[in-house]
């Protein structure tokens, strides 16, 4: 089974974010970056499916040159090769225009299964998967907890709201978006890291893919810190002092204890 896993590099989870002076995005200069967490689970699922059924895992990443680090890590964990759509300003694309690039990069690949995380931790659209499926004419399912391969088809467990689930069957090729936390993520081994250095990374630019930038449907106008819905009373001092003040407020002001 040939599996493509679409991964994205995003600012590390506990980053302190500052708005860029342009007001159009955050200041990414001095941030560290890592694989988008849901994509790490998609990669893990891809690697496990390959271990069970054989085949190949290809990591696909749209991002600037620094994303090469995240791609290397995916290769070190066991992806066989990678495609890096390199663009120093991925933010100039909206989800459709980014997915068009991915679809163009996959033209010569004909994968049996495409996996990606259910959403990115930065933009949080959660749209790349279903858009890519539509562009490639594939059936899809989102927020998947389990994947079971059948003959020319798959049976997946889909998460619904409020603790409900549902199994869905569909023919291959297909696209799935994977829920976070469905399995334990592996670490790269020393051998894996060594091997990764010799694995192929195909670098392509949007221009080479013949998909012009500029045709976007939505524009991010202004990025800013949210206003607080409530004025939070913060308690300071030593932990014991802050705790005592909080308990007093809960008892005499909020009257909840």
């Amino acid at each position: 089974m040939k599996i493509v896993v679409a991964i994205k590099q995003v600012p590390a989870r506990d980053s302190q974010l500052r708005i860029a002076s342009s007001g159009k995005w955050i200041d990414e200069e001095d941030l560290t970056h890592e694989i988008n967490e849901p994509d790490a689970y998609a990669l893990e699922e891809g690697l496990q499916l390959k271990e069970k059924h054989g085949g190949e895992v290809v990591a696909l990443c749209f991002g600037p040159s620094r994303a090469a680090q995240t791609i290397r890590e995916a290769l070190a964990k066991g992806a066989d090769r990678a495609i890096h759509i390199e663009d120093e300003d991925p933010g100039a694309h909206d989800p459709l225009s980014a997915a068009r690039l991915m679809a163009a990069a996959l033209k010569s690949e004909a994968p049996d299964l495409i996996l990606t995380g259910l959403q990115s931790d930065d933009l949080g659209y959660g749209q790349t998967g279903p858009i890519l499926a539509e562009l490639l004419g594939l059936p899809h399912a989102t927020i998947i907890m389990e994947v079971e391969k059948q003959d020319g088809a798959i049976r997946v467990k889909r998460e619904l709201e409020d603790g409900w689930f549902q199994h869905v069957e569909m023919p291959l090729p297909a696209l799935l978006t994977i829920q976070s936390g469905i399995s334990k993520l592996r670490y790269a081994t020393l051998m894996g890291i060594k091997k990764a250095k010799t694995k192929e990374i195909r670098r392509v630019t949007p221009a080479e893919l013949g998909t012009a930038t500029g045709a976007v449907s939505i524009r991010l106008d202004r990025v800013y810190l949210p206003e607080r819905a409530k004025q939070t009373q913060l308690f300071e001092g030593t932990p014991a002092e802050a705790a005592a003040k909080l308990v007093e407020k809960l008892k005499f002001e909020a009257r909840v204890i």
Partner: protein
Amino acid sequence: MSILVVMEQRAGEWNRMSFETLAAAQQLAGELNTTASAAVLGTGLDALAGELAGKQLEKVYAVEHELLNEYTPDAWSSALRQLIAQAKPDTVLFPHTYQVRDFLPKVATALGKVAVNDVVGHRVDAGELVLVRQLFQGKVNVDVRFTDAAPHFVSLQAGAWRADQLAAGSAAIEKFTPTIAAGEIRTRPQDRFRESARAVDLTAAELIVAVGRGIKEADNIPLVQELADAIGAELAASRPICDAGWLPMERQVGSSGQTVGPKMYMAIGISGAIQHLVGMKGARTIVAINKDPNAPIFEVADYGIVGDLFQVVPALTEAFKKAK
């Protein structure tokens, strides 16, 4: 600039978020000086369409087809594209449910459009709609505008608009029968199920202490359990804690877990991603303990302590014991 709301139902039961979206549509129609209509997809829709006809709407579309009995992305996409071609709305609004997340990007893409999803607010700027979304798990907001021609697709986050502000009225019902062939539908959904009966009903709890990623390791959970015991509260958790198996799934609060409304909700080491906030922001008093003063949990908290939970939590346990 007409607005169409696509409501969500299953087996004759509304997804209640749909009514928040309907209220938003009425409000937007007023601000943009246009009309709002609503559509519902499925089979046997007379009662549901009849209910919608009692709202202040231009038209109610009952989109019926036997292949719309059970949700599939292919049938929904096909039916909606046909409906949009006929109704010609400028803006199509959806509640941001799991089902909408599944089919909305597909419909928009088929029409060469991009949906702006999970919207928490809006304003009208010179007759143009500006939508507010959250980025970075709620740490940052962004104003988004459409730059292309209608139709524009938008989904609204749970709780961002209030369903109790719906205006009553009288709307005409129009039956719409799309053409869908069984061969178009590639996915085969099976029965919905729940993993196990819930032994813990967090929705009935008056006091909840909830723990998140900040607790770092399973071995640290007892620290928070002791605090919950000192307060007499139920212990709950954000999703990553349950995913890791540190607490059972039945203790999960958020969009994929339980939605709670206790007298007090104390969030410990929980940053407050949107998926968690929708499950607890109805609590009467919210307390947040977090090391990051910019964590989104503080946007909804009444009281807070910014600090290391490993120092604050034992101090709180002591303070609650003393207060008894």
